[in-house]
C-alpha cells in the first residue's frame, strides 16, 4: 500500500524544485506506476522533477534525512522494471534535465544532462559530422541517463559496442546527496579503478548521473543493407555464423522469425516480407563507399549458401528504411495479436543460436504459448517475445514457467540472462542461474559501497 508523502516533506521538495515539479496527486502518479515492463505496477508516493545537479543533490539529501526510498527514472522505456517504484518510494525523474551542455567538435565529445533523448544527441551533433553510436530500439524516446543506467545496446552495437564504450565521465549524485565526479576525458591515465565503467549499467542503484560526458564518432560515409529470406530459422542462424566467421564485420545483423513476420505484415507496419518465410535476416555494412559492395556481395553469398531463397539489396535510403521496417516495427506490430507481450532478453554464444532457437520453439509448444523471436543475431542477443493475456491467470503462470526455462537454457549453453535490458525486477529471480552465493554477496557489497543504506532503487538487481 503506497504511503502518501507528508506535507512537510512535500513542501521541502517544492522549495527546492518549484511548486509544479513535485507531483503528489494520485491521478497523476498513476502515469509513473510502471516503466516499459507493464506487468509490474506500483504507484509511488510522489514524483520530483529537478532541473540541475544541485537540485538533485538537495532532493536526495532530504530523502536521505527522511529515510525515504528513491527510484530514479528517465523516459520510462526500460523493459526490466528498473524504474518500478516501491510503495515507500519517491521517484526522481530526469525529464526536465534535458539540455545538451556542450559539444566539443575537436575532441569529439559531448556533455549532456541525463534527460536528453538518445536520438536528439545524434541530431544535434550531425552538423559537426559526428554522431552518438549506441542506438537502442527506443532511441527516439529513451534518454541518455536511462542508457547509462542500463548500459544500453542496439542493433549497431555489433560493430560499435554498447553505452559503456562511449561514456568517458560522469557527475553523479550519491544516495546521501553528495556530488561526485567520476573519470573524465583526458584522465584515462589516472592511477585508479574504472569507476565510470562500474557505474554504467548499475541500474540506478549506485547514484543518479546528472551530467554525462560521451565520446562521439565521425558519421559514416555510406551504408549497404541486405534482406535475406529463409525457409527456416536454422538456415538464417547458419548464415549469421558464416558471415561473422568469414571475417566480415557488419554494423548490424538482425533476425525476425515467422511469427513476427506474420504479425508485422498483418499490421499497419507491413514491410513486404513474405508471410510464408521461416525467417528474415537484415544485414547492414557501413563505412567508406568503396569496398561496401564487396562486403555486401560476400554476405549475400553466405546467405545463399546457407539456403536463402531470396536476397534483396537496398539501392536507396527509402529502400533501406523499407527493409528495416519489418525489424524495427516488430514490437509495435505484436500488440495487435495479443493483449500483452513479455519482451525477453538473453544472450548466447553465436554458434549456439540454431539449437537455442529450435529449443525455444519447443518450449513454446510445450507450454502452449506463442513465442515470436526478434533478435540481434550478430552478437547472439535474443528477444523471444511471449504473447499472452494477463487476465488469464493460468496462462500467466505458464508464461513465467516458460520464461525460466528459456533463461535456464541460455545460461546452460554459456550465455546469460540479459544482454541489454538489465535485471531490474524482472530478471532478479534468475540471477542465481548465473551467480553463486559468493558472487551475489559481492554484488551486494559493491552496491553498499555506493549506497550503504540501500535506499536507492531498492529491490532491483539484487536484494
Amino acid at each position: 500500500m503506497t504511503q502518501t508523502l507528508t506535507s512537510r516533506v512535500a513542501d521541502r521538495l517544492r522549495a527546492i524544485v518549484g511548486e509544479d515539479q513535485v507531483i503528489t496527486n494520485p491521478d497523476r502518479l498513476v502515469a509513473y506506476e510502471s516503466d516499459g515492463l507493464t506487468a509490474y505496477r506500483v504507484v509511488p508516493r510522489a514524483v520530483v522533477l529537478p532541473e540541475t545537479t544541485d537540485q538533485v543533490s538537495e532532493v536526495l539529501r532530504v530523502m536521505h534525512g527522511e529515510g525515504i526510498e528513491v527510484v530514479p527514472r528517465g523516459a520510462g522505456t526500460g523493459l526490466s522494471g528498473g524504474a518500478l517504484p516501491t510503495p515507500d518510494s519517491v521517484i526522481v525523474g530526469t525529464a526536465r534535465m534535458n539540455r545538451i551542455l556542450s559539444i566539443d567538435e575537436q575532441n569529439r565529445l559531448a556533455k549532456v544532462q541525463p534527460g536528453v533523448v538518445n536520438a536528439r544527441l545524434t541530431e544535434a551533433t550531425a552538423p559537426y559530422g559526428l554522431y552518438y553510436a549506441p542506438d537502442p530500439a527506443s532511441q527516439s524516446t529513451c534518454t541518455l541517463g536511462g542508457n547509462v543506467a542500463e548500459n544500453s545496446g542496439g542493433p549497431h552495437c555489433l560493430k560499435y559496442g554498447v553505452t559503456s564504450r562511449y561514456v568517458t565521465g560522469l557527475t553523479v549524485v550519491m544516495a546521501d546527496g553528495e556530488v561526485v565526479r567520476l573519470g573524465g576525458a583526458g584522465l584515462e591515465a589516472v592511477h585508479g579503478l574504472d569507476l565510470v565503467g562500474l557505474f554504467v549499467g548499475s541500474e540506478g542503484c549506485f547514484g543518479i548521473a546528472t551530467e554525462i560526458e560521451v565520446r562521439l564518432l565521425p558519421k559514416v560515409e555510406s551504408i549497404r543493407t541486405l534482406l535475406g529470406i529463409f525457409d527456416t530459422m536454422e538456415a538464417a542462424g547458419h548464415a549469421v555464423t558464416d558471415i561473422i566467421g568469414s571475417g566480415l564485420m557488419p554494423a548490424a545483423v538482425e533476425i525476425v522469425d515467422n511469427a513476427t513476420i506474420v504479425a508485422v505484415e498483418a499490421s499497419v507496419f507491413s514491410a513486404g516480407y513474405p508471410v510464408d518465410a521461416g525467417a528474415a535476416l537484415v544485414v547492414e555494412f557501413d563505412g567508406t563507399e568503396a569496398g561496401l559492395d564487396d562486403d555486401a556481395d560476400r554476405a549475400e553469398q553466405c546467405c545463399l549458401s546457407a539456403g536463402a531463397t531470396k536476397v534483396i539489396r537496398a539501392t536507396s535510403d527509402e529502400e533501406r528504411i523499407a527493409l528495416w521496417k519489418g525489424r524495427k516495427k516488430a514490437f509495435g506490430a505484436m500488440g495487435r495479436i495479443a493483449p500483452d507481450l513479455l519482451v525477453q532478453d538473453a544472450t548466447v554464444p553465436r554458434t549456439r543460436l540454431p539449437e537455442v532457437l529450435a529449443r525455444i520453439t519447443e518450449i513454446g509448444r510445450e507450454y502452449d504459448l506463442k513465442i515470436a523471436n526478434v533478435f540481434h543475431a550478430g552478437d547472439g542477443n535474443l528477444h523471444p517475445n511471449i504473447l499472452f493475456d494477463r487476465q488469464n491467470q493460468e496462462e500467466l503462470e505458464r508464461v513465467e514457467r516458460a520464461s525460466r526455462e528459456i533463461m535456464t537454457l541460455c545460461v546452460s549453453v554459456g550465455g546469460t540472462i540479459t544482454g541489454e535490458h538489465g535485471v531490474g525486477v524482472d530478471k532478479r529471480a534468475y540471477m542465481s542461474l548465473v551467480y553463486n552465493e559468493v558472487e551475489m554477496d559481492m554484488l551486494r557489497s559493491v552496491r553498499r559501497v555506493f549506497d550503504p543504506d540501500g535506499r536507492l532503487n531498492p529491490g532491483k538487481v539484487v536484494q
Partner: protein
Amino acid sequence: MTLARSLRSALPGVSAREWDQSNNDVLGLGGTPEVLIRPVSTEEVSQILTWAGEEGVGVLPLGSGRHVGPVGGGKFVALETSLLSGVDEYEPADLTITSGTGTTFSTVDATLREHGQWAPFDSPGVNERSMGGFVSEASHGPLWAGYGSLRNHVLGATLVTGDGRVLRLGGKVVKNVAGYDLLRPVVGARGRLGILTSVCLRAFPLPAHERVLVLKGAKLTSLIEPALLAGTAPVLPVSIVVVGQLSALDGSSALVLRLHGAESTVDADQSAIEKHLGIPLDRLAEQEADGCLTEIRDRGGLEPRCVEVSVLPSRLSQVVAAADEVGAAKAVIDSYAGRLRMGSSDMSADAVSTFRGAVESLGGALRVTRWDGVTRPKDTSCRGAELQIAQRLESIFDPAGVLWPARQ
C-alpha cells in the same frame, strides 16, 4: 617458522621455492619476497591467498614480471601465474578465446591467427606479456582508435579476491548486463582487487589488407596539427600516431597512419584522407612498415623509465611543449586518444614531477609505467570522493590488504 616452511606445512601440494635474488634487478623490486609460489589452479590461488591472510603476509602477483614497480615493507611472497597457462576454450565462429592468465599474449594471438583472427592490441612489449599482466594493466596502444579499449573486449574473467573468494565475472558473450559490471574495475586494477586466473577475450577477424602511410616532418610539433586533422577525416584510420626520431625511418619524425580493410576500401580510404589533409602521404613497403610499427609499439614502454600521459587531444601540443625535460623528442603520440608515451634510462624524478604538474594543469593525467630507481615519481591520482569510493571498493575485494604489499 619461516614463511616457506609455514606454506609447505599448510599447503604441502603447492609448488614453492626460494626467491632468486637476481630477479630483483630485473623486476625493480624494492623489497625481497621470501618465497616464490607457482600455483597450478584457481583453487590453489584461493588457498594461497587464504593462507596469506591468516599469516598476515603480503602477496605480490607476478605475470611476466615486466611491469612490477617497487614494493617492500613487511613480509611478502611472490605468486607467479606462469603455470596457469594454456588456451582453455576457443570457438572461432564465436570470436571468443579463454585462456589461463599465465599464457602469454603471443600464444593467444598466434592461436587466433591460425584461424584468420587476432587480438588488436599494440601496447609496449605486448607479445611477451602474460594475459594476467596484460589485462591487469589494461594498457593499450594506438590501435585504440580503430578497435577500442581492452576494457571493452575482456568479456569474462575468473578472479580470486584478496581473501581467497573465487568470482566468475562477465562471461563469454559480447553483450551481458546481468548484474553490476564488476569486470570493468578489475581490468586495469593492476592486481589490487584480486588475482586473475583466466580471462575470456573478444577476437577480431584479421584485416584483409593493411596499409601504413607516413608523413615525415623535421619537427615533432609540426606533425601534431595534421595528426589531429586526420582524426576528423570522414574515414577513421585504425591508428594515428606522431612519433619522434624513428629509427625505421632514418631518424625522421613522422605522422604514421594505419588503414585496415579490403584493398579497394583501403585505396579509397587513403584518397579520402589525403584529400582531407590536403597533402599526399607516403606508403611504406611491407617490411619497412613492420619495422616502423614494432618500433612505435614498444617505444616509451620498455626503457628503464617510462611515463604515459593522457590529455584531451586538443591540448597535445601544449603537453609536448612541456615535455622537453623528459624526452619529448622521442615521444610516441597517439593523437586520436590524446595519449603520449616517453621512455629513457636517464629521466629524472624531479623532471617527471614537474611535467606531471604541467599535465595536470592542462586537465590531463600522468602515470609512471616503469621506473628502475627507488625514488619513483608519483602518478596522477583520483581525489576526494572518487578516491574514497575506490578505496572502499578495494577494501571489500581485499579486506586484509594482502595484495600488492606496500604498493604505490
